[in-house]
Structures are given as structure tokens and as C-alpha cells.
């Protein structure tokens, strides 16, 4: 496949111009992760002081798992939304046919959306990790290599969901835009974000283990409570990621083909 980094760079530049021209968009990127951290962070502070949080190793570790989970959840959510928000800008501005009629390949388009997902994360979540240190004494970066592994597993899952949602938007237009905001939230109850998988009913646990984030959040608790990096879990999570990313890519291709067949690419409104 003939991939051009210049064309990927053109799309990244297009989104960078947009962010530079719209302070409200930048504010939005920073605002929600900060609000999420402060709300949940102060709640867990209250719960620790009230003695409501108890876990092996003590309340401080329980607090660490909660704030760590908040930060990693935000990375997952904002990673997916950063991917999809860049894509949906093309629908809002009715620019998609210009993009699809240009020499830009679908893989290059996805590459640009992945890059924007990372850039938006850096803008939005990086300050929040610093806030977590300042307000709650929790340093995500101190997890080191484990954090890098968590990040990779979460991001591939975020991009898979982003790719699938973008395909749905291609096919069904802006009528499906709520999925950009809502779809990832199915992971929150099932993905063992704030509690161990064993909390779920037995029949639901196999469903949870089908989701890569489950391996990350279980891994986070392993690091903070048991002080071990569960490479076995992370490897399994990444293997599922690879499968899901391939499935999402195939779904995107099929939905693009379906949109071409339905003639919906020239009229991508509601």
C-alpha cells in the first residue's frame, strides 16, 4: 500500500488549524477530564476519610486505584472521542466528499485521526495527570512501563471503537452522531473500570473478559495493590485489541462501501 505521510500531515494540519481557530474546542478538550477528575477525586477523598473504602493494603491504595481508574478511563474515552470528533468535523463542515475525492487513502485518513486522537489526549489529559498529583498525590507517570502498556491497550481499543463509529456516521450521517458521545460508556459497567471483574454476576464476567479495558483495569489494581505487573493480562488484552481493530477496519470498509452503494456520501447530513 502506498502511504503518504505528506497526505497524513495535510489532514493533521487541517485539524490543527481548526483547533487553533476555535478556543471553545480546546477548552472543551481540557474541561471535561478536569471536571471528571475533581468530582470523583474529592468523592473518593471523602469515602477514604469516612472509612468507606477498604481494600487489601489499606485505604490509600484503594484511593490510588480509584484515581488511577479515573485517569485511565478518561484516556480511553477521550482517545475514542478525539478520533471521532476529528472525523465528525468533516460531516459538520460538509467537507467529506472533498476528502474522499482527493488522493487521500482510507488508511491515511485513519492515520490522521489516530494522530489527532493522540494530540487531543496530550492537550486534554496531560494537564489532568498533573492535577492528580497536585490535588490527590497520585502520579500516573510513576507507574512507568506498566502505564505505557496500559496506554497502548486502551488506545487500540479506543481507535477500534472510533473507527466503527466513524463507519456508522459515514453510512447513516449525522443522525447517528450521538454514538460518538455514548457508545464507549457501555464499557464503564462491563469493563471493570472501578471495581474488580468478580463484582459482576458470574454470567456477565465472560462478557467483561471480552473487552480489552478489563485487562487494563485489572492490571492497574494488580500494580497498585499487589505490586506486580500482570503481563499475562496485558498480553491477552492486546491480542483482543488486534482482533477488534481488524474487525473495526473491516466494518469501516464495509460501511464505506455500503454508503457508496446508498449514495449517502454526497449528502452526509441527518
Amino acid at each position: 500500500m502506498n502511504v503518504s505521510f505528506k497526505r497524513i500531515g495535510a489532514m493533521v494540519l487541517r485539524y490543527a488549524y481548526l483547533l487553533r481557530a476555535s478556543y471553545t474546542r480546546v477548552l472543551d478538550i481540557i474541561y471535561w477530564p478536569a471536571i471528571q477528575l475533581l468530582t470523583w477525586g474529592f468523592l473518593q477523598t471523602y469515602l477514604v476519610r469516612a472509612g468507606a473504602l477498604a481494600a487489601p493494603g489499606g485505604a490509600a491504595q484503594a484511593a490510588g486505584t480509584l484515581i488511577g481508574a479515573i485517569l485511565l478511563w478518561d484516556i480511553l474515552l477521550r482517545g475514542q472521542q478525539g478520533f471521532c470528533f476529528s472525523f465528525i468535523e468533516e460531516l459538520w463542515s460538509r467537507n467529506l466528499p472533498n476528502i474522499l475525492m482527493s488522493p487521500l487513502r482510507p488508511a491515511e485518513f485513519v492515520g490522521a485521526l489516530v494522530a489527532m486522537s493522540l494530540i487531543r489526549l496530550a492537550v486534554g489529559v496531560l494537564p489532568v495527570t498533573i492535577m492528580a498529583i497536585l490535588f490527590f498525590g497520585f502520579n500516573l507517570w510513576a507507574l512507568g512501563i506498566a502505564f505505557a502498556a496500559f496506554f497502548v491497550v486502551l488506545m487500540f481499543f479506543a481507535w477500534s471503537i472510533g473507527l466503527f463509529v466513524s463507519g456508522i456516521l459515514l453510512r447513516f450521517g449525522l443522525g447517528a452522531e450521538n454514538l460518538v458521545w455514548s457508545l464507549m460508556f457501555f464499557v464503564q459497567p462491563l469493563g471493570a473500570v472501578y471495581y474488580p471483574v468478580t463484582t459482576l454476576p458470574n454470567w456477565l464476567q465472560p462478557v467483561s473478559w471480552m473487552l480489552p479495558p478489563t485487562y487494563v483495569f485489572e492490571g492497574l489494581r494488580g500494580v497498585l495493590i499487589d505490586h506486580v505487573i500482570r503481563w499475562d493480562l496485558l498480553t491477552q488484552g492486546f491480542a483482543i485489541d488486534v482482533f477488534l481493530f481488524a474487525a473495526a477496519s473491516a466494518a469501516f470498509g464495509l460501511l464505506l462501501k455500503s454508503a457508496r452503494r446508498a449514495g449517502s456520501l454526497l449528502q452526509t447530513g441527518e
Partner: protein
Amino acid sequence: MSQNAVAPRPTLAVAGLSKNYDKRRVVGPLDFSLEAGSVTGLLGGNGAGKTTTIGMVMGLIEPTQGSVHAFGCDMSRERYGALGRMNFESPYVDMPHRLTVRQNLRVFGMLYDVADLDAKIEQLAKDLALGDFLDRQTGRLSAGQKTRVAIAKSLINDPQLLLLDEPTASLDPDTADWVRTRLEAHRRTHNCAILLASHNMSEVERLCDRVLMLKDGTLVDDDSPASLLARYGRDTLEEVFLDVARGRVEGASA
């Protein structure tokens, strides 16, 4: 000429092209080709299938049957071999509103791998009189200014195949005339084949050396403007258009 001489390959070749929605045929079957340096008008009333036809030529709509070849590339399988040499302008498509005109042209210039992009943008700004608003956000421009920017985008890669859907629809007569002059110049200097969907009959008469008349998705006539006028016994293409649209085609046989 040698007996072995091969006819030059058309810039665009459309064969048996049709489109159905829910088993209802909306276009086709269409057969036509565009030679390099030609301007072909695509005429028809609202809903006649012009935009669907252009969409299929662009590869944005999948034909139910038939094929489109641009520069010899099958647009259903090898479109990336042709897209760098094509471009289009359509009223159904905008450019990012928050970006300035210069930023938009820069992004599209990079997508089309345009060499010496700064010089190209300056030249387009001069040719299409974009200079006054080159650094203004595209969304803040008037309809006519936006159309000129869209035409600038469609010319940024010096295309050899240009698909235009109502390119002067929102322009005042002076600016529209001026844009037509630029399109004629581009056709001459780049030997560009142009497919032009328009409701402006004087524009078609001026620019086109051939006219395809569509009605209910099918090709009902295909000739030069002069021949159409002669065959229909009319003074203007608008009268010919009305004859075709209203089914008054008895006297139109070739």
C-alpha cells in the same frame, strides 16, 4: 494515417452506467466518453440524474451496473491511479468554515501533492481574485466568494479532468462570466476535459462543444450545441431544454 494507429484513449469513458435505488432505476444506462480538451455539458431538469451521474464518475456513488474509466483507471478498483489528476466542484460540498481560504488551499494542495504550493496559492488568488479574503475564514465569505474558493480548490492540482456541478449558480453575471473565462483558460492551457452540469443555458452554449441531455436518468440526446439548435429548430439551448423536458421532441431526429 497508419492503419495500425491507435485512437487516443479518452480522458473519461463511461459504459453501461446505471444506478438503482430500491430496485428503482434513477440513472442509465449511460454511455459516453470525454476527450482531452473537450467541455461537455450535462443538462437535465431537477431529478434528471446529473448529480448522481457525477457522483458515480467521482466514485462517491457505486453504480449498480456499468463502468467508469478515468485516464484508463477503473474507478471502482483503481481510483487512486486517477484521483490526483481529477478534481471537482459541487454545491453539495463545502470547505471547512473555520479555516481561512489560504489554510484550506494549503491542506488541499498537500493532499494533491502540489509542488511549490505557496506560489500555486498566490497564482490562484490572483487568477480568481481571492487576494482580499485569502486570510479570512471561509465560513465568513459571501456565497459568490465561497464559490470562487471552491473553484480555486478544484484547480489546485491543475486537473486534466474537471467535474463541475453548477459552478456559477450563486455568482453575479459579471463574476460568473469571469469564472467561465478562467475555466476556458484552464481547458486550453491544461488540455483538460470538463464535464459541466448546469442549468445556465447561455453558459453551456458558451463553454461546451458537446451537450448530453438527460431526462429521467436516461440520455435522450447527445450533440454539439449548434447541431442541437439546428435539429430542434430553435434559437437557444433553453428552448431545446424545454422541448426535451416537456417531451416535445418529434422534430429532433438527427
